[in-house]
């Protein structure tokens, strides 16, 4: 078993070296007769191609997209999606998404129904990259249904998606959240990933009604407009430290002189993280000048508050 795997690894390494050279020459604009890639090497080629896709930007990325056509790989990739093993299907789905291969649309729809969350999610991501508008009707309901889709990968998918898709997603999510489903928290976190910097009615709802600190934190993360400040202030007495951290962060972004006293009170928190965010917020407020901060340091009898003020000032000076 090991001997076979060593031979396979060596062969794969040799092929990747050659393929890397081809891709570099291609990106550099060199004209050459593209060699034929054997079926067994397609997977290695795609790994390398995706790797290049991730690290390159701008025109080079376009050139890279043409490489699949140039090496006549598209039919082979489609075949991999239909008949390949798990790894092949996954990499092929990733590749057709990155290359915006419209021909692969129907093949990806089949992968969407696969039992593996990773597979269905990769197919969904590819669909979103190929046609965000068309994909929104199919993929948005699936994001809500598929609670096994990994949040970190979902967040990445949403962050990198076309604004049209993000808007469609947000609209649907706002409706879903109003129904207060049991997986509400997950949805709220996803909204955070696509937030389009406008106040959302649901933040008011949760900031005024919810007792769940996780939900309150998720709602606070969505606050972006001064009109929402009154709901934030309604949470000033919340004792949960993660809520306090988020309140400090929000006040740092949109706080008014009226909120300074609350930020000052947070400087005495037992939690470093609360003190740190409150200090960052205070120091970052546009109406607090250096003199006021110095007065603040001198007036603090609490060593922890003084420490954190000095630390954040030092950090800012280094920037």
């Amino acid at each position: 078993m090991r001997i076979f795997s060593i031979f396979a690894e060596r062969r794969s390494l040799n092929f990747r070296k050659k393929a890397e050279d081809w891709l570099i020459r291609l990106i550099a604009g060199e004209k050459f007769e593209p060699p034929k890639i054997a079926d067994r090497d397609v997977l290695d080629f795609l790994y390398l191609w995706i790797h290049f896709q991730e690290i390159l930007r701008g025109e080079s990325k376009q050139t890279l997209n043409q490489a699949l056509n140039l090496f006549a790989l598209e039919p082979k990739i489609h075949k991999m999606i239909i008949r390949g093993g798990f790894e092949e299907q996954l990499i092929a789905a990733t590749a057709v998404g990155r290359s915006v291969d419209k021909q692969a649309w129907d093949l990806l729809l089949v992968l969407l129904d696969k039992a593996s969350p990773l597979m269905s999610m990769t197919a969904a991501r590819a669909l979103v990259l190929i046609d965000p508008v068309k994909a929104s009707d199919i993929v948005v309901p699936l994001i809500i249904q598929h609670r096994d889709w990994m949040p970190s990968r979902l967040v990445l998918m949403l962050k990198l998606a076309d604004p049209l898709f993000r808007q469609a997603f947000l609209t649907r999510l706002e409706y879903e959240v109003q129904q207060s489903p049991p997986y509400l928290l997950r949805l709220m976190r996803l909204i955070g990933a696509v937030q389009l910097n406008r106040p959302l009615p649901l933040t008011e709802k949760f900031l005024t009604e919810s007792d769940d600190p996780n939900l309150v934190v998720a709602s606070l993360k969505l606050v972006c407009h001064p009109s929402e400040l009154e709901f934030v202030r309604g949470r000033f007495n919340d004792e949960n430290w993660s809520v306090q951290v988020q309140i400090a962060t929000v006040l740092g972004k949109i706080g008014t002189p009226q909120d300074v006293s609350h930020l000052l009170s947070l400087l005495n928190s037992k939690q470093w993280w609360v003190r740190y965010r409150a200090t960052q917020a205070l120091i970052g407020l546009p109406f607090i000048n250096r003199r006021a901060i110095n007065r603040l340091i001198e007036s603090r009898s609490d060593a922890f508050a003084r420490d954190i003020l000095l630390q954040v000032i030092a950090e800012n000076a280094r920037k």
Partner: protein
Amino acid sequence: MSELNIDSPLFIRFSEWFFLGYFVAISVGYLTLNLISVFSLRAYLPNKVLENIPQIYSGLEPPVSILVPAYNEQLTIVASIQSLLQLSYPLYDVIIVNDGSKDKTMEVLKENFGLIPYPEAYRELLKTKTVRAIYRSTQYSNLRVIDKENGGKADALNAGINASHYPLFCSVDADSMLQRNSLQRITYPFMEDSRVIAVGGTVRVSNGCKVQDGSLLEIGLPKNMLALFQVVEYLRAFLFGRLGWSVLDALLIISGAFGVFRKDVVMDAGGFRTDTVGEDMELVVRLHRTLRKQKKAYRMVFLPDPVSWTEVPEDFKTLKNQRIRWQRGLCESLFGNLDLLFSRNGGAAGWIAFPFMLLFECLGPMVEVVGYILMLAFCWLDLISWPVFLVYTFATISLGMLLSLLSLLLEEMSFHIYNRPSHVIGMLFGAIVENFGYRQLCSVWRLMGLLQWLFGKKHGWGEMKRKGSL
């Protein structure tokens, strides 16, 4: 009364059946764990396909404080910290806790990392021995050192928790070295599931590997036989022991050498207990006990691929001390949290893992050693035939061998980190030969640990003779 004599047929028959029954139970238990691990790995590995592709951070990665308790670690501490400072992770800091080292650990740290005293206000949320000073590195903004009076590893970890800033903390041994992507991988479950309170990673043996400035240049096997046997042991313990328990939601051990915990949960539980030598396991068992009692939803997870490399003992004396300490830690952890055993809400932790650990891991060495002695005695006194004795010996040795070989197979199926044919041959050799003497010796040491726990002997930091291979 005569029926209680060693030569009474009843006693002999009872012993034979008892040891046979115990052997069958332990075999079934371990093989089931192995089977669970195989299925779990099969489900886990495909998810790694996309990890070979460069990924940007999602922004969900929780900040982590890495805590490194250090006691007389002058030889390895610099390389260890260097490896920690090279991790790929968006936001983390490293806190070294010098627990009153008697060697030059503090001087070495000052010299290599440009430490200056940093008059940071320190809040003692968990009670610890006096903190003498806090230092900050002038070269690395995310490195701090706490110099405190000696109080043991648990006390040092508690001081580290007090000084930590972030919501998660990762405990790492000062003689360990993390792989660059380890922190990113080990925090994954925290992002996926808000119930996760602790995640354990895999510890592998660094003896025999080529290391430079905290980076692992080449993976290799140690030439020292004791270290080689431990390579196989670690594979067995992590790859199918913990993975199997994790699947059952009954993980009772997260190694202090590499584990990430939610700080608030650990603080609510009172931090690490300073009166035990197995503070890592004790904390995990206590978390199970208290959270189950409070009927809180939680998960503790083991991941097979975030790897920490650690130096293992290469001499009998250090190894003996380590095994005695581990066994005492195991006993203290289990008997200190006996409420979990068959408790009403105990779940798989209280109803499967705890009794398993108690019967096979805690009392196992006693049964094994007594079994060997009794069988030898019966045989010597002609109370049983040689073939019966040989069958007993053959069965126990082949079970050990089977388990070791299965873990090698699991490794081969999954990560094959040791990638040369000579490595495979070396590990096969280790997996077979360790069963002839080494395993029995370990059982004797573990029995000594069990006895020391019974008679309440004190034990401090596990001192280790270092080669400074990191």
